[in-house]
């Protein structure tokens, strides 16, 4: 549905050049909810804006639905943009128009009759759950409601693709969830392809099936979210995931209350990640009976991503050194990831 090939975006300011996006290749399939995560300044917004050519790439090619957008004339591009909805962090509604008029804005020049347009807007407002607000002005709505209006407006021309640039970053956690839920519904009901930019892995975890992680303009890691969450390769990705799964937080608590959790100097502190139906209890029993390793679970959680459970535990192993080595080999064989936590636990 969306193909980005060797995209580079370079800004020149005075004598300084900034490579905001470097050698990005990305392909988004129909029906995907593709997350793009990265810290501030990673180049996410710049990248997503190349998809509808709001930001023409310095080099590289952009295809949406097989069409090479850069080869279109300005008016053809405008027609194509009507099929690519976009929503923003700050909603970007027109303050002087009512909610109904805002949603009707992109319908100007469409083939629909006046009555059909009115009908369309009414349906869209119903879809996003704001039928009662059609005569209100944006200033009278909450942030979550404004984003719903923006979504309705983005859907007015029945787009195939919806681009979301930090669409939930200005919203509280609960409102964020409700907007994500709406996006997920739209993805399923209208088989809408969604590209979603965020700096929160939490958001990705909630609705994406694929994710790309950006750092300094490059995509450092991308793929199916179960793979990325269970076997993150790059440090940035691990960092994002540890935040999203609250591992960081748990670890901090543990390390600041060492006496309470009884971590001995000889103990091996690690994070264990397992996928699917493996559960921790038989595992703990097995490690003890087979290798005489005592496992102490300090913290744990289970995420369900795309119907696949992913478990994350923070544990200490204690026992003889060589037994421990055997136990770790056993875990590896079972496809259970063990990441040693190297933070100094003795001070």
């Amino acid at each position, binding site marked *: 549905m969306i193909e980005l090939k060797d995209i580079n975006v370079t800004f020149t300011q005075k004598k300084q050049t900034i490579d905001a996006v470097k050698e990005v290749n990305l392909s988004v399939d129909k029906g995907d909810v593709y997350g793009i995560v990265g810290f501030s300044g990673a180049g996410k917004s710049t990248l997503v804006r190349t998809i509808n050519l709001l930001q023409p790439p310095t080099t590289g090619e952009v295809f949406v639905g097989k069409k090479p957008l850069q080869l279109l004339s300005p008016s053809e591009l405008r027609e194509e943009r009507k099929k690519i909805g976009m929503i923003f962090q*700050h909603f970007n509604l027109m303050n002087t128009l009512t909610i109904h008029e805002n949603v009707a804005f992109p319908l100007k020049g469409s083939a629909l009759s006046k009555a059909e347009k009115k009908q369309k807007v009414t349906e869209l407002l119903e879809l996003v759950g704001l039928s009662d607000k059609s005569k209100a002005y944006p200033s009278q709505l909450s942030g979550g409601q404004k984003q719903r209006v923006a979504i309705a407006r983005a859907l007015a021309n029945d787009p195939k693709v919806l681009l979301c640039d930090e669409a939930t970053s200005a919203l509280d956690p609960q409102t964020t969830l409700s907007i994500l839920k709406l996006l997920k519904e739209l993805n399923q009901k209208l088989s809408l392809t969604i590209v979603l930019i965020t700096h929160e892995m939490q958001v990705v975890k909630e609705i994406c099936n694929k994710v790309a992680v950006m750092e300094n303009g490059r995509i450092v890691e991308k793929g199916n979210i179960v793979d990325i969450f269970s076997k993150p390769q790059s440090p940035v990705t691990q960092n994002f995931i540890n935040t999203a799964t609250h591992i960081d937080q748990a670890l901090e608590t543990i390390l600041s209350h060492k006496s309470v959790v009884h971590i001995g100097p000889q103990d091996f502190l690690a994070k264990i990640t397992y996928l699917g139906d493996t559960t921790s209890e038989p595992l703990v029993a097995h490690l003890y009976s087979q290798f005489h390793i005592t496992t102490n679970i300090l913290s744990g959680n289970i995420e369900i991503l795309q119907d696949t459970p992913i478990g994350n535990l923070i544990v200490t192993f204690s026992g003889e050194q060589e037994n421990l080595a055997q136990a770790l080999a056993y875990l590896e064989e079972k496809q259970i990831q063990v990441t040693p936590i190297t933070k100094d636990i003795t001070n």
Partner: protein
Amino acid sequence: MQQFFDTYLPHVAPLKEEFITSTWQTLYMVGVTALIAGILGILLGVILLVTDKNGIMANPFIFHILDKFVNIFRSIPFIIMMAMIVSFTRWVVGTSIGTTAAIVPLVVGTTPFFARQIQNALVEVDPGVIEAAQAMGTSPLGIIFRVYLKEGLAGIIRAASITIVNLIGLTAMAGAIGGGGLGNLAIARGYNRFFNDITLVATLIILAMVFISQFIGNLLIKKVSH
């Protein structure tokens, strides 16, 4: 009432007719200039806005020419400009003297000022909204008419209100080339003959015009803001 006039404003009552004519002349100059300069100023202001380097139709060549033009014309003192463009005025209206002739320099003096005000007002329109409109496939003209001029309406009215107050001031100077109006009355009858009461009343009428236009401006701004 009669006594009040006789005591405090002895020279005003006999000039009642002249006061009325002068007021109409001022209103005429302000009205016609506002109309012409209003249209030209919005046009020029919008062109400056969209051709600027981050504008929706960025064009450094056009921008720099118009930008310089506006700066130069804004810098020339009005009274000198009237003298400078006198042959242009004669070419446009056939004469260089009188109320109608005064409108030419007034338009030339007001348009660049208003254009700059419009440009500054419209730059304030949230760039995010412009970006959203572009993302929705709105054409540049669509963005000008449906977004800038609509979202920036309160700013435009504010600019117009400031410009009209400024313009009322300029009409007083236009009296110097026989433009008539309240400014001329205050100078010719009041100042030159030491009839301070005439100057005072002319000033009060001008102040009333200023306050009324500001009042209407604020009222309209309130009406278009949500």
